């Protein structure tokens, strides 16, 4: 589908779309208008039918009147005959869908009736009857052919019923009754014939007609109700007259006749009014249908024209900017960037779209497209400037790269020389390491000698330790002796204390004795002297005890000093022993370390050999490195070639960009 649509221009597509919409619209419009037309046509036909019906109605009333009058009132009969002629003439001119054959037949009957002027009623009555039947048939045919009976509108339907179906029959029957009044009643014994005639009048039917006509009064007609009432009054008047008629009294019969005539006239008025009202309804219907048709046509055509105009405008507003954009794009493709920029300037765009300054929010897609194009042209211009500048920069960079490569080449050359030098140096290292390994071996031997010497030292040190232990034991013994002395002196101290206490008690005793002796008076003078003596002895004992205490104190002090000296000595001996023990421990550690050193020397020796191998490998690696330097040199040559090609590529790029800048 899209493939086929792509072959058309935008305007053509819009045209196709418009046609797609317009076709069903046209069909719908056709049907609508046709429907209205049919309604109008039908109504017109009915109106024409009603016109013809008027003439036929006149005929249907005039012919019985003529029949009644023909026998005794020639003047009025002649008047009626003239009216019948006029009615036939009018009937001949009518456009209604009348049965021309029947009309022609009726006219023939009428001509014969006019010719048989003065004939007896018995002769003319069949002709009248025939004429009336023909007219009745014509009415029926006209009703059928004009669609009066089958009228679709309810409003007029009832009127049609009255005007076309009911009234002709009732008027006809009433005419017969009146004829009977005129002819039969004046005769003796004509009452039966009249009664028979009267009985043919269907009063219930008449009531039905009135009901129908009343139903139809809901519409626009206003004369119908009064006419119905008048008709009903005339009917009841006639019936009362018919009931009270005196057959012997000619005036009473005449009254009955006049009453019947009035009833007939009322019926005629009602009939005519029904026809006229029906005609008016039909006219209104036609007018309304015409108005509707006009409105439908106007609305449809107006909207279609407006839609077509809008579509054309859209197409023009869309196609023109697009064409303009296509032209601008062509300019850009051809490299005329400045012209393209002029093409999308604001003024140019306004000219293309054909509008004055439009605010941003009201701009449609075409505006936005053109705006975007203008932005694109600006960006392209900037981009070209950037590319041009970048070309210059890249060219400079390429030149710098080439220079850098040349520098790198010389550096690689220097590196190769350095590598060769390093190779020679590593060879020297190899030789040095070999020598170092030999020296390590002799060092290992010297270490084992040192272990032996340290073992000897250990042995003499254990002798010293034993001596110091003996010394320490001796000091401990001395300390024990001194403790013993201290204990003994303490014991002596306890004894001295006892002596002192005894002396004290003795003193106390002698004091109390002296006091008692004093109280006893002269008889106890000798006792007093003894007490004094005892007191002196006690004092001496106390002094001696004090002396002993002093000596013991001095001795205790010297013992204390001796103990301190011995303790000091013992402590020194212990310190010496600890010192010797520490020395011995250090010596043991030294020996241990020296012993452990042996394997370390071995490890170092092995390491040296590894190093010597490593030096050999370094030499090999250096050789490889110098080969790699040669490879690098050749790679650099390739790099230089690549830089050259970069430069030429940049030159091509600049040419390409120059195409855009060369235009005027």
């Amino acid at each position, binding site marked *: 589908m899209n493939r086929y649509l792509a072959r058309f221009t935008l305007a053509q597509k819009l045209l196709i779309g418009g046609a797609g919409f317009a076709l069903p619209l046209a069909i719908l419009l056709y049907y609508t208008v046709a429907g209205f037309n049919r309604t109008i046509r039908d109504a017109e036909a009915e109106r024409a039918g009603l016109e013809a019906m008027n003439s036929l109605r006149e005929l249907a009333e005039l012919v019985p009147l003529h029949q009644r009058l023909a026998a005794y009132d020639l003047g009025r009969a002649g008047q009626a005959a003239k009216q019948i002629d006029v009615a036939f003439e009018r009937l001949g001119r009518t456009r209604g869908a009348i049965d021309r054959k029947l009309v022609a037949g009726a006219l023939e009957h009428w001509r014969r009736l006019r010719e048989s002027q003065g004939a007896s009623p018995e002769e003319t009555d069949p002709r009248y009857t025939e004429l009336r039947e023909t007219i009745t048939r014509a009415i029926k045919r006209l009703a059928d052919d004009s669609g009066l009976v089958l009228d679709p509108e309810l409003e007029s339907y009832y009127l049609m019923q009255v005007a076309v179906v009911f009234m002709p029959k009732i008027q006809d029957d009433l005419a017969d009754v009146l004829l009977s009044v005129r002819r039969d009643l004046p005769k003796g014994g004509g009452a039966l014939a009249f009664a028979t005639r009267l009985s043919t009048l269907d009063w219930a039917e008449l009531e039905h007609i009135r009901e129908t006509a009343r139903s139809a009064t809901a519409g626009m007609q206003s004369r119908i109700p009064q006419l119905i009432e008048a008709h009903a009054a005339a009917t009841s008047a006639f019936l009362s007259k018919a009931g009270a008629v005196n057959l012997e009294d000619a005036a009473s019969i005449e009254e009955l006749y006049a009453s019947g005539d009035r009833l007939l006239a009322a019926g005629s008025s009602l009939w005519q009014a029904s026809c006229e009202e029906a005609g008016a309804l039909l006219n209104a219907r036609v007018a309304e249908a015409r108005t509707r048709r006009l409105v439908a046509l106007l609305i449809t055509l107006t909207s279609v024209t407006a839609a077509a105009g809008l579509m054309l405008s859209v197409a023009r507003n869309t196609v023109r900017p697009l064409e303009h954009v296509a032209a601008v794009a062509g300019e850009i493709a051809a490299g005329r960037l400045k012209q393209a920029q002029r093409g999308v300037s604001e003024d140019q765009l306004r000219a293309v779209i054909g509008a004055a300054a439009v605010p941003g929010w009201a701009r449609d897609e075409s505006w936005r497209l053109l705006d975007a194009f203008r932005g694109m042209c600006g960006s392209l211009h900037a981009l070209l400037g950037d590319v041009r500048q970048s070309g210059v920069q890249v060219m400079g960079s390429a030149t710098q790269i080439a220079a850098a490569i040349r520098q790198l080449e010389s550096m690689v050359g220097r590196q190769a020389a350095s590598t060769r030098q390093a190779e020679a140096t590593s060879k020297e290292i190899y030789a040095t390491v070999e020598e170092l390994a030999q020296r390590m071996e002799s060092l290992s031997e010297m270490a084992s000698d040192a272990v032996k010497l340290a073992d000897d030292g250990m042995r003499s040190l254990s002798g010293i330790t034993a001596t110091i232990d003996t010394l320490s034991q001796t000091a401990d013994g001395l300390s024990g002796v001194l403790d013993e002395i201290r204990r003994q002196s303490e014991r002596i101290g306890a004894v001295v204390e006892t002596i002192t206490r005894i002396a*004290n008690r003795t003193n106390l005793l002698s004091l109390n004795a002296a006091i008692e002796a*004093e109280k006893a008076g002269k008889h106890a003078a000798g006792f007093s002297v003894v007490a004094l003596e005892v007191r002196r002895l006690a004092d001496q004992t106390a002094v001696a005890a004090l002396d002993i205490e002093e000596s013991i104190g001095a001795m205790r002090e010297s013992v204390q000093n001796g103990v301190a000296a011995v303790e000091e000595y013992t402590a020194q001996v212990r310190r010496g022993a600890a010192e010797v023990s520490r020395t011995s421990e250090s010596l043991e550690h030294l020996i241990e370390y020296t012993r452990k050193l042996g394997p370390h020397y071995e490890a170092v020796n092995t390491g040296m050999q590894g190093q010597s191998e490593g030096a050999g490998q370094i030499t090999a690696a250096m050789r490889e490195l110098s080969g790699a330097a040669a490879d690098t040199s050749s790679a650099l040559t390739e790099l230089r070639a690549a830089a050259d090609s970069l430069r030429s590529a940049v030159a091509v790029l600049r040419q390409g960009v120059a195409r855009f800048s060369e235009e005027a």
Partner: protein
Amino acid sequence: MLLLLFQAAGQSYGIEAGCVVEVVPVPRLRPLALAPAWLAGTFTYRGTTIPVVDLPALVGGAPARPLMSTRIAVVRYQGEHLLGIMADNMTETLSCSQEELSSPGVRMDEAPFLGDLLPAATGAIQRVTVDRLLPDEVKERLFPDD
């Protein structure tokens, strides 16, 4: 007249042996709560609780030292009550006559118990009168049944 000698605050004092009941070693004393410093406490002497006066403290010196020569002289106070007098160096007696005693020259109202002086080789010995030892309010407290 025989004087029981003792020392208080470095000076020698003596009390008449006639009023001394007995000289006893210093037992464990029960202190008197809220009493002046010179009332050293009470102790039970032969079934009777008697108060003890610390004489060195009473004459304004340091309290008696806890030495072997520090003793208590149980005395008869104003004829009927027993009272302990605690002092240092209560180890000697001295016989003297009334004539040897001389007035001290100055009498302090606060110390009515200090009496006449007896010159001796080691310094003057002052006589202490036991019956005037306690001030009236203390006496009333200690012996309230008078």
